[in-house]
């Protein structure tokens, strides 16, 4: 680890400790690190979008080829994007809506097909299972659980009928399935959060302490 890397590691380690200090109680060091992270993230996003998307996909083709029939669509896209900023000029702020309309329309178009073809239909089809399990007892049991689970959870979310009698009992079963789902999600969330802590502790122990000792010539 060279001098600059070690300096960067120290900055990262001290900021990590600032953020972890919130676990004791809220304090100005935590607030500073939090604000710095938000600012750096936004700056990084703007910089990387300029460098990796706008430069190679818009500026360079327009610079190299000029405005031709082939690059006309790029100029149009660039103008549509720039037009979004007219909202900061009060007199013509309404003009930004046309760009927003194009943007929303494009993504609605993509999403409508994507959601229906790639999500609603295959996911619905996956719940229409062969209850015999094709002769396999475990597959049959799994299919039965899916069948009962989907049906009772849908009943729980069906509010046009009062939840009492047989319907009420079935919707109660639906709650149990939901609780199992939430339990699994909570378990995974705990694992995810601990993984993040592991990442930071590993960084502090291996890169910060280990790296500093190594730079000082102490230890392996």
């Amino acid at each position, binding site marked *: 680890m060279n001098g600059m890397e070690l300096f960067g590691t120290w900055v990262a380690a001290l900021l990590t400790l600032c953020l972890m200090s919130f676990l004791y109680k809220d304090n100005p060091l935590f607030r500073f690190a939090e604000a710095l992270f938000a600012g750096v993230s936004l700056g990084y996003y703007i910089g*990387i979008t300029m460098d990796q998307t706008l430069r*190679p996909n818009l500026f360079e083709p327009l610079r190299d080829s000029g405005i031709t029939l082939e690059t006309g669509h790029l100029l149009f896209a660039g103008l549509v994007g720039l037009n979004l900023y007219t909202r900061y000029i009060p007199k013509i702020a309404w003009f930004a809506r046309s760009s927003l309309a194009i943007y929303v329309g494009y993504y609605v178009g993509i*999403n409508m097909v994507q959601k229906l073809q*790639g999500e609603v239909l295959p*996911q619905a089809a996956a719940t229409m299972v062969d209850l015999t399990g094709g002769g396999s007892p475990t597959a049959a049991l799994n299919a039965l659980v899916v069948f009962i689970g989907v049906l009772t959870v849908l009943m729980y979310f069906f509010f046009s009928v009062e939840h009492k009698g047989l319907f009420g009992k079935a919707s109660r079963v639906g709650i149990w399935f939901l609780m199992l789902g939430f339990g699994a999600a909570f378990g995974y969330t705990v694992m*995810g959060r601990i*993984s*993040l802590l592991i990442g930071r*502790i*590993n960084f502090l122990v291996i890169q910060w302490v280990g790296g500093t000792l190594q730079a000082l010539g102490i230890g392996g």
Partner: protein
Amino acid sequence: MSNLAKLTSIDRRWIFLLIGLGTLIPVLLPIGFPVRVTAPVKQIFDKIETFGPNDVIVLSYDYGPTTGAENDPMTDAILRHCFSHDIKVIALALYPLGGLTSLTASIDRIAAEYPNLQYGVDYVNLGYKDGGQATMKLLAEDFSGAFPNDTHGTPLSELPLMQRVKGARNAQLAISVATGIFGEWWANLINAQYGLPVAVGCTAVSAPKYYAYLEAGQMIGLIGGLKGASEYEQLVKDNYPATREAYANPMLQTASKGMDVQTIDHLIIIAFIVIGNIAYFADRRAKRA
């Protein structure tokens, strides 16, 4: 107030301290709990095993530094598997905050372990592109539409690997190592519209929803959180003994080491849940009496 009842109002900072110690001690003194490989992870490994030297995998880094602790071991293990098995890799990033940083750091570090690899022939780093689904749709048809150059500024037409793979749809498999919704887009856009097999390595928080895609056959496998990453590491180590040396490096953060911590911390949390419930019911009984 009884001693048990006092536990229900314990200062939560004591719990934080215990979790901190439960994390720090196994990091300093690894235990090495065994890792049991599950079917969703093995399915991805087995699929890659069926590929030959002419086959290509698209590996998308759809995560940033905030989830690097979970996602980095996944991409590292997948890359080691592909490079050990002589599979070509086209790597790209669609996540703005760190996607490119993670990608470049990871691919440079792992490729350095395989001196025979040739950039542009065996693997390519396309860099980051903004635009989400729009970019995905474009790169499925034609990589050069979305990525005119690779991350070093080289036009794709000059890279031998990119000359024979026009779009992601021409690859054999796409793997998205993702945070949030990106993995879903690979399944419900790229798999659904182009039929390209898709696998996802996701953060643990997102794993439950991805099982729905797995069950529906929209993904060939799933690496869920650090546990999934440790399973993939195990498969790579078991099947490619040469990789064990890299994983034995004490300076390396691996998912397998992380699972020691997960086990200890989960035991602490379970103990607190049990003790908390006992204290709650004991207190309630005492109040009734």
